[in-house]
């Protein structure tokens, strides 16, 4: 009987002392990312970036002494799963804010949940519908540039080069579709005619047919809007066909992996890329340079590969939330107000943000640099 009582006593003591130690309750941030499934190329760097920033802040002592915990839910690139994840994060885990989801569809799917529960969402997807109309998207922000901005960056270059007739080839996913709509919408403003509008599936093996059609239609440039293997296959086919017209890619092109996979076919491909991809080509006095340098070097040191455009999305959302937490503390509503009103000319990895009650994205076409592939590396297009 005695030893048992002793153990019980010891346990009691342990429990008591444990509760006396000021073990700080962590601040919980949620994230819904397409870690697996069709959009996993987005979720992977986004997740890594968040993990890295979390460890960095905790190593530096957390937020006012409280550690930060990030609960990352894999949405499997599926809207139903994303909704489930949002409910779990908001109601069970009681997170202060949510980062993600990675795709427009999933973001749209979780908006009602976030709005009902009054929790800020900073999406990593580009779709305009995510933050517009702002009145109905009170709790929703995003760090991904509008597709419109990337299109404008491309069209500005085209106009400069005197190209007026283009062929468009897009992937039949939400990403490609959003790009396709933006390309059509902006074309008249820049005096550009789309002479061919082709599409392909995310797992298609050969796009020669579509490119041949574009060429036959008399296009002076090809614009491909996709992410994943498709953009490499298009590049290879474009190269093999010796089309004699330049190939432009979307901002999804910004991964060294693509140059590697396409080999010499990638030479001369032009794309509007975020500065995170070409940070070492920036002048030293650029506002984003130092933070990008640290971000990319840290990332590469910890994970193989680069964070790329998509890592930058969650880098910025995570930094915004952390900054707001430091300033106003873990209050869902105050965090939202801070992000909306206090981020002016705020340098991030994806660009320089200016948030306001009428703009919950805060980026424009200046977030992009036009970049050309040369000798297997990125070069700023002059």
């Amino acid at each position, binding site marked *: 009987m005695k030893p048992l009582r002793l153990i019980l006593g010891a346990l009691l003591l342990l429990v008591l002392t444990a509760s006396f130690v000021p073990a700080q309750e962590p601040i919980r941030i949620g994230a819904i990312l397409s870690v697996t499934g*069709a959009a996993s190329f987005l979720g992977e760097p986004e997740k890594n970036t968040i993990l890295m920033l979390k460890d960095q802040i905790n190593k530096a002592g957390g937020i006012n002494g409280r550690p930060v915990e990030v609960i990352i839910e*894999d949405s499997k690139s599926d*809207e139903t799963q994303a909704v*489930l994840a949002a409910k779990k994060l908001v109601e069970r885990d009681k997170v202060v804010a949510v980062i993600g989801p990675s795709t427009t*569809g999933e973001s749209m799917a979780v908006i009602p949940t976030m709005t009902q529960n009054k929790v800020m969402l900073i999406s990593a997807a580009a779709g305009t519908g995510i933050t517009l109309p702002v009145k109905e998207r009170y709790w929703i922000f995003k760090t991904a540039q509008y597709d419109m901005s990337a299109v404008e960056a491309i069209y500005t270059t085209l106009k400069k080069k005197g190209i007026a007739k283009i062929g468009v080839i897009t992937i039949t996913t939400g990403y490609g579709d959003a790009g396709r709509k933006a390309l059509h919408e902006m074309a008249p403003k820049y005096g550009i005619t789309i002479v061919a509008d082709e599409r392909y599936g995310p797992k298609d093996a050969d796009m020669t047919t579509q490119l041949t059609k574009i060429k036959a239609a008399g296009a002076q440039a090809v614009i491909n809007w996709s992410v994943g293997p498709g953009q490499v296959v298009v590049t290879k086919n474009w190269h093999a066909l010796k089309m004699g017209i330049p190939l432009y890619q979307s901002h999804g092109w910004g991964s060294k992996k693509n140059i590697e996979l396409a080999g010499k076919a990638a030479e001369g491909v032009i794309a509007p890329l975020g500065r995170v991809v070409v940070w070492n080509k920036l002048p030293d006095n650029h506002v984003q340079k130092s933070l990008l340098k640290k971000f990319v070097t840290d990332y590469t040191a910890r994970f193989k590969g680069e964070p790329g455009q998509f890592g930058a999305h969650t880098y910025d959302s995570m930094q915004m939330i952390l900054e707001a937490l430091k300033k106003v503390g873990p209050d869902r509503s105050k965090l939202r107000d801070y992000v909306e009103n206090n981020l002016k000319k705020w340098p991030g990895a994806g660009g320089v943000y200016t948030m306001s009650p009428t703009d919950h994205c805060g980026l424009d076409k200046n977030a992009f640099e036009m970049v050309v592939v040369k000798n297997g590396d990125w070069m700023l297009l002059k």
Partner: protein
Amino acid sequence: MTREHGIALLILAALVLAIPSIVTDSYVMTLMIFSGINAIAAIGLCILMGSAGQVSLGQAGFYGIGAYASSVLSQSFGLPVPACMAGAAIVSALAAVILAVPSLRLKGHYLAVATLGFGEIVYIVLNEFGPGGPSGFGDIPPLSFAGVAITEPAHVAWTVWGFLLLVLVFSLNLLNARPGRALRALHGSETACSAMGLDIVRLKIKVFVLSAVYASIAGSLYAHYVTFISPSSFSFFHSVLLLMMVVLGGITTVWGGVIGAVIITLLPETLKSFEELDVLAYGLILTLSLLFLRRGIVPIVIDKFRTSERGHA
């Protein structure tokens, strides 16, 4: 309907009524809602396969038609949600007739591929011509009845599981009456059925339509609950998922569809802790359950129960 089915239904009804007091966590509630939605579609597939012996790899097509048709009707024409769901069910039924009339000449794998082709065509059409294209569209009116919106999770759960109960009662009634017996007979011997004067083709078309209507109801509920839909939720993978639910739960009874749907819906959530390996774990669990529970969970449990009962008597 036999007494056992009646008792099971009563228990289920009691559980459904008690949902708000059992489930307080809205995340679990959401899981319940999705399970219920999947179960409605799975029951249709159960009757189609287990009773009439037809395989469909295109059930997600009807699910998608139900979701899109109902959403468009309610969003663009402002019709009340129940009317939209009924309208969507009619559209799905028509699609089912169009598919069934030529396909039912086909047997086994050929029929499977015809339904697969149908599902893919629906997916492509939604992708190309659906409102919002591949990106989908949102702001779909929420579930409502007589003008009162149903958005409270517990109320949505009641609605979904209420539909599920209705579908179950309807199905059990049907299966234990003239048409249902004919369907089960069809599974046993088509030769004998024709000698008994059964019009096999019409029966098959009707059961196909029935399964399409169930899938359509499920799709409509999904759309009005999530209020955002895109084609990716209605792809081939969802057809396979529904098939997996039915086979795992057991195709010989509609309860198999319900249990299978709940398990398949909950499984990925419980595997989250495996992180990177969750796909692998999911696949392994499916493989093992199919290997060891090949007749399906519900039939095996029922048999166990019956033998033990007999053992005691």
